[in-house]
């Protein structure tokens, strides 16, 4: 068989393919060749084949048949083979395949190899994809390498240790002694990875954190050396020496100083120094400053330093570089909770960022703007945010709309402003608002009584313009249904009243019913609105006609509504005015949860909402309730309730109500235990709602002279039965039968309480006893 082609040849061949199909063909041919070559167990060409396989894997073709070959390469003696083998292992294997466990032995041997590069390869692979079993087995080797003097290996071992700790957190203590002199290294690579290791340990365990706090002075010293050391060509990046290490150390200082005054104080000077001396013309300087600012904000720094930090962030905001602005916005978002006032000073810059072209910056600016809204700036901010809502991409609209609603709810200066704002949102971003905003809005409108005329007028005008945005249409039709009379009578104080006739209103609503743009929910709203207008308008015949048409609609929901409304016209016409009168003011419910259960069939669990008005109509109870549900809309609690039909539930306690309604069922009591002066009697009753449950009351009495304290009775039953032990009346059984301790046990189907355990203290010494009770009277079970 000819020698397999080289990787370069393969790459060149694949690049000549002009279509995807051609490429696939070439690759399949090559895969077949590789597979047969693997079968021949040829050692010389194995690494070449695996290299090709890895290339094909990168392009997206399946390469799993090479996994075992990688293992064979790892086991080989040649460095070349090992290199490709480990690379293949990292790319193709993972802990989900059992094959990877076979690597453990190879890695162990390689960790002790004489050549440092082989050891390095093994550490690298273990650190990338070692599973928890592998880590457990090899942690000892890693720890040994952590103490070696070879800096190349030491830094790799440190990162490998981080991986081990992530996989098996219990092993953290093992690495503790090795960390002792990690920070006294001169080699920056080792320093860097050691700081990473320390950071990981501190983040995972508060004990470690406390332990490492004593390293703060050392870290401060290292940082100082870095800043003051002058030019060092090896670690210099754009004039700053080893910025990566500086950033790492700053991060570790942040974690160490977080809630600790002493450490924070020790860091103050160096942080101030870094903040003022770092050059900001290049990205590196800004990276360090950014990290410094975050550290200052997180630890307990003095106020002067904090002001310095926020000012740096403010300067970042004005920087031309977009990355810097993005980073500034992100960190301001993190600090706005704690330093609200300081961030407010930069509000105008932040609001300007809303108009930036960059999507990432816009998103950050939007989040930050919502965080900055308060009672004082609500009007100005809302103007900007609404403008933003108009012009932003669709991906932002939903979040922005929700944010606007929340802010308006919290800080609205006046009801009219609130309603205007919500209307603006509905008209501009109506299709992106969340579903629960419709009922919230309806509730808001109902509660602002004086705005009804204004609201309905504006909504009507909006409807005339555009009926495609469903939330707007739903709210509008609900309002027109409720306040249509105000609309027609033209009595609006806030705005110039418009002249609308009843027919025009009905035209609009009927238009909604037939339009293709309306969803079924919207149609339901429209039909109900038309129905409500029958008591507010005079053109009842037209309404009757519309309602009867929909009595045969294909949509089941519409049909049901129409039929019931028809019935209202015919048989129950006397009730119509009362049923369709204005909705009373609704209480704001806390969540949607409990009210959902209440309203489905008008049944009477005491709900979270108390009715404000007495129920005007009582019968026929069920039908009226159904209609009210329909009229009420989605989440509105039907305020009118019927009288409670049955017993007032004692807040759900009825099932476990032991004391009420237990009928003595004539089961004779029995003595369960009588020893050493302690007598325990069982008396039986049947629980009322569930006759299968026997309620056993134990009476413990003490005929000795000394009382029994710390009396505890425990019972166990076979698995097929269930037992519930309630708390006893007391722990002390008084002496000489002067009183009894009672305790209630509820058992399902008792036949044999097999074990009872009693513990008590008698005359100063604890007594414990185990008894089997099986002489239950036959009537106690069925």
């Amino acid at each position: 068989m000819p020698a397999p082609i080289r990787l370069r040849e393969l790459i060149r061949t694949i690049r000549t393919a002009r279509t995807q199909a051609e490429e696939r063909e070439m690759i399949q041919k090559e895969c077949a060749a590789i597979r047969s070559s693997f079968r021949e167990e040829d050692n010389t060409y194995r690494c070449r084949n695996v290299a090709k396989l890895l290339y094909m894997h990168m392009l997206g073709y399946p390469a799993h048949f090479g996994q075992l070959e990688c293992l064979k390469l790892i086991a080989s003696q040649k460095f070349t083979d090992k290199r490709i083998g480990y690379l293949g292992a990292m790319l193709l294997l993972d802990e989900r395949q059992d094959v990877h466990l076979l690597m453990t032995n190879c890695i162990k041997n390689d960790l002790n190899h004489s050549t440092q590069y082989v050891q390095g390869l093994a550490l690298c692979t273990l650190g990338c994809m070692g599973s928890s079993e592998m880590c457990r087995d090899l942690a000892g080797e890693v720890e040994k390498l952590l103490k070696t003097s070879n800096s190349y290996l030491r830094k790799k071992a440190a990162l490998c240790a981080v991986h081990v700790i992530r996989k098996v957190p219990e092993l953290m203590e093992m690495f503790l002694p090795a960390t002792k002199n990690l920070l006294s290294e001169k080699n920056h690579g080792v320093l860097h990875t050691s700081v990473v290791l320390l950071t990981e340990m501190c983040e995972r365990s508060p004990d470690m954190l406390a332990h490492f706090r004593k390293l703060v002075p050392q870290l401060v010293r290292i940082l100082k050396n870095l800043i003051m050391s002058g030019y060092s060509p090896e670690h210099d990046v754009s004039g700053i020496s080893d910025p990566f290490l500086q950033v790492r150390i700053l991060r570790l200082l942040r974690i160490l100083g977080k809630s600790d005054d002493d450490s924070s104080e020790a860091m103050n000077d160096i942080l101030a120094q870094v903040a003022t001396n770092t050059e900001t013309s290049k990205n590196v300087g800004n990276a360090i400053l950014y990290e410094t600012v975050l550290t200052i904000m997180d630890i307990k720094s003095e106020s002067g330093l904090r002001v310095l930090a926020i000012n740096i962030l403010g300067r970042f905001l004005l920087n031309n570089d977009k990355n810097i602005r993005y980073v500034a916005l992100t960190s301001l978002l993190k600090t706005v909770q704690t330093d609200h006032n300081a961030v407010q000073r930069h509000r105008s810059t932040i609001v300007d960022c809303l108009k930036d072209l960059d999507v990432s910056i816009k998103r950050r600016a939007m989040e930050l703007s919502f965080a900055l809204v308060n009672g004082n700036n609500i009007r100005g901010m809302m103007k900007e945010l609404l403008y933003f809502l108009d012009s932003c991409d669709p991906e932002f609209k939903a979040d922005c709309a929700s944010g606007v609603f929340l802010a308006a709810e919290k800080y609205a200066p006046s009801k009219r402003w609130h309603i205007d704002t919500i209307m603006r949102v509905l008209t501009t971003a109506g299709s992106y608002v969340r579903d629960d905003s419709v009922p919230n809005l309806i509730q808001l409108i109902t509660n602002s009584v004086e705005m009804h005329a204004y609201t309905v007028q504006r909504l009507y005008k909006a409807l005339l313009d555009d009926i495609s945005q469903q939330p707007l249409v739903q709210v509008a039709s609900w309002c027109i249904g409720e306040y249509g009379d105000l609309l027609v009578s033209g009595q609006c104080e806030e705005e110039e009243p418009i002249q609308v006739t009843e027919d025009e209103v009905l035209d609009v609503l009927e238009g909604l019913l037939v339009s293709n743009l309306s969803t079924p929910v919207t149609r339901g709203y429209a039909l109900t609105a038309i129905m409500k207008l029958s008591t507010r308008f005079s053109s009842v015949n037209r309404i009757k006609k519309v309602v009867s048409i929909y009595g045969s609609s294909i949509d089941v929901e519409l049909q049901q509504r129409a039929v019931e409304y028809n019935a209202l016209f015919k048989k129950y016409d006397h009730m119509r005015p009362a049923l369709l009168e204005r909705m009373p003011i609704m209480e704001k419910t806390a969540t949607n949860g409990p009210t959902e259960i209440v309203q489905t069939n008008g049944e009477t669990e005491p709900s979270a909402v108390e009715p404000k008005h007495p129920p005007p109509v009582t019968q026929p109870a069920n039908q009226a309730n159904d209609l009210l549900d329909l009229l009420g809309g989605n989440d509105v609690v039907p305020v009118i309730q019927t009288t409670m039909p049955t017993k007032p539930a004692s807040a759900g306690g009825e099932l476990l109500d032991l004391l009420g309604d237990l009928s003595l069922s004539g089961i004779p009591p029995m003595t369960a235990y009588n020893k050493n002066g302690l007598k325990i009697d069982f008396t039986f009753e049947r629980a009322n709602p569930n006759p299968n449950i026997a309620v056993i009351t134990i009476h413990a009495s003490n005929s000795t002279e000394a009382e029994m304290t710390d009396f505890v009775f425990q019972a166990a039953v076979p698995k097929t039965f269930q037992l519930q032990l309630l708390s006893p009346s007391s722990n002390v059984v008084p002496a000489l039968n002067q009183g009894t301790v009672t305790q209630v046990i509820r058992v399902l189907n008792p036949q044999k309480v097999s074990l009872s355990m009693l513990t008590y203290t008698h005359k100063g010494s604890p007594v414990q006893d185990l008894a089997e009770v099986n002489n239950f009277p036959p009537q106690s079970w069925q």
Partner: protein
Amino acid sequence: MIKAILIFNNHGKPRLSKFYEHYTEDTEQQIIRETFHLVSKRDENVCNFLEGGMLIGGSDYKLIYRHYATLYFVFCVDSSESELGILDLIQVFVETLDKCFENVCELDLIFHVDKVHNILAEMVMGGMVLETNMNEIITQVDAQNKMEKSEAGIAGAPARACISCKEHEPPGNAQKHQHW
């Protein structure tokens, strides 16, 4: 922690893909496609940070990328890494490649993807930054390459002889005699 490092060209062809968390092969390809889609839409003068797509994203993760000529270098990181620091890291990576390959271009990455992996392994290990000093990285990579060459040993002698012959041959007869 760095979740993934991807290099792809302006048309979305992957030139290097290294994941530090495990995904199935299909998911990996999907991630590459999705990332390319997100990154290629970006303008030239916007910031280099992006929220990740659905597959590799999540609220904690972002994509930090840099565009050099025909290649995108994308690092997917979580919040424990400094964003500006990663930008610098990408710069160091590219400069290292430049030194190792002498004026690196896309073709170098195509034909020597294993070497690029080796260089990357000296910089990032297990998703964490290992070494940032360019000279140190290059020294180590060179030493390991030398080891490989010495292992080729006798088997490689005819190849090496051919190489030196090639240097005396007139151009036009050049043949490629590399270890791979």
